[in-house]
């Protein structure tokens, strides 16, 4: 029996059960993920314990792989276009639903958010059928379209929460003080909404970058990185290189998420001031 911590006591949990549960939960979530970086430094092509020795050769191998680098570039391109487009669409949508009341508003919002709840495999098949019917050649273009569709609900959700408490009288005050609508946007609206835009773009980018199913269905000649990684899993000698790449992506993703959340937080604190 562990000694109950002070925090556990305060929360009315005399056995500290909640703390143990939380710890177990975190381990369950993150230990498998931690295998990725651990084995990426293991000097063996077999992903098994015991570990053999430390090496960075898998990283060297991964980053010398031209196909992989092309896939990485493709993913970065798709991610950049999808996140910017989804954020613009999300901003327009969020502005509409937070600023105006219109008939059928909940239905429209529901439809925009729907891709979050449709199984991705269904979305993928549906889009593939549509693209084929329209004779649109498969390629990065079709993948990008799919990703925009998938990212827009995320962007919309982030930006709606950002704009929801936006005091309309701030913009009116600016115009009242002599600024045109255009200057008002740059001097008031944009600085206040910018943190939301940044966190929306980061989040959309990660959604796009990690996305597999849609990319798999809609790909042409050039795969995105997750699709490329999946295709390499057939070759055992490539696996450690994939682990190395995976470890890099994992760390970059984590950093981006933390930045996105951090930016959103600063922004939220600031916004509260305006509303209080």
């Amino acid at each position, binding site marked *: 029996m562990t000694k109950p911590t002070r925090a556990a006591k305060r929360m009315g949990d005399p056995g500290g059960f909640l703390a143990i549960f939380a710890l177990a939960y975190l381990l369950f979530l993150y230990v498998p993920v931690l295998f990725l970086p651990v084995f990426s430094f293991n000097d063996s092509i077999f992903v098994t314990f015991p570990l053999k020795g430390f090496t960075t050769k898998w990283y060297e191998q991964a980053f010398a792989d031209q196909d992989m680098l092309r896939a990485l570039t493709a993913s970065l391109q798709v991610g950049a276009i999808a996140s910017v487009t989804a954020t613009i669409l999300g901003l327009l949508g969020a502005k509409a639903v937070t600023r105006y009341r219109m008939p059928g508003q909940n239905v429209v919002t529901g439809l925009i958010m729907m891709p979050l709840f449709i199984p991705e495999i269904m979305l993928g098949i549906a889009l593939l059928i549509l693209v084929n019917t329209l004779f649109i050649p498969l390629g990065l273009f079709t993948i990008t379209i799919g990703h925009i569709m998938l990212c827009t609900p995320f962007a919309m959700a982030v930006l709606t929460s950002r704009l929801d408490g936006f*005091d309309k*009288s*701030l913009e*009116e*005050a*600016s*115009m*009242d*003080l*002599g*600024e*045109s609508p255009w200057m008002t946007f740059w*001097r*008031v609206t944009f*600085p*206040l909404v910018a943190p939301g835009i940044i966190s929306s773009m980061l989040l959309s980018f990660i959604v796009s970058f990690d996305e597999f199913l849609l990319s798999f269905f809609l790909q042409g000649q050039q795969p995105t990185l997750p699709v490329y990684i999946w295709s390499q899993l057939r070759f055992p000698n490539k696996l450690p290189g994939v682990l190395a790449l995976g470890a890099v992506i994992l760390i970059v993703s984590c950093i981006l998420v933390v930045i996105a959340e951090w930016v959103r937080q600063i922004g939220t604190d*600031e*916004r*509260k*001031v*305006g*509303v*209080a």
Partner: protein
Amino acid sequence: MADNIIRIENVTKQFAGGVKAVDSANFNIERGEFFSLLGPSGCGKTTLLRMIAGFEFPTDGEIYIDGQASALIPSYKRPTNMVFQSYAIFPHLNVFDNIAYGLRKDRLSRRELKRRVDEALAMIHLEGFGARRGDQLSGGQRQRVALARALIKRPKVLLLDEPLGALDKKLREEMQIELRELQKNVGITFVFVTHDQEEALSMSDRIAVMGKGVVLQIAPPKELYEAPNSVEVATFIGNINLIDATVRSVAGNEVTLDGPGFGQFRAPAIDGLKTGQKLTAAIRPEKLSLTASRPGANYVEGTIKASAYLGDRSHHHVHVKGRPTPVAVAAQNMDRSMTIGIDPSKPVYVTWDPRSLILLKS
């Protein structure tokens, strides 16, 4: 002829769905005046103010600001500035930048800008607060910053949308006095929107009372209270007893009426009265007094139904036979013993000076 800074001519604002928020408003605001728009929420006072500011545009009519037809001019081209109900302090700017916000186009030198902002900070007694952020200010300080930010533009008219509503009672009363002083010092016309009648009465040169989109009466505070022109105005400003009365006879400047519970009573005549005409007679609670012994004339007999002791005064509800609603009497507690006991078994007499009665045609 009066020097009118604002002329509102036949201004109507109809929203989608056909609701008329403001219905053919017609009035003038004089230069240098403290003018209040008073009415319950939803009466159109804020819509009217926002039309003067340029945030809403009238569906019909014209608004002249300093002689210029302005109904369709956007807010950023008008010589008016506004203090918002929420203050609308820019959260991403500090106090200095908030106050200097409207001066960008004037292209002042750094030094001149600083001088102007410091001057504004001094005016609102917030010297040295320039570097503070909005969230480091109290409600009253934010309100002052909003005021300084608007006044630094030297507007021809300052518009205030319930600026004291968010402040606690004591601070609100201080700010009322301060605002009034400030208005006298800067000499700028203030148009002040409020639903608080005491606030309007204590601060304004003139008040426009609005109800359901219509301007009901425009008058100085005293006239509004003592000589309301309609039942709506009489009941909105302060408390009043209404008597559905019928004219019995008119003799010179005195009229005799008949009303339920009151029997025959006298009142000062108004123009155009005919025998048999029905109208409303009204009298304020503080113009009635209670006595235990029967007066000679101008009284009704009743019993006290309820009393509330409020320190400086007491409110009594007196039930009068034949009258559906009790008569409200506000008595000053002029000595420390309450001379009229709360004995429901004993009759009391409500008495008045006939000159205190107001006649209102429906």
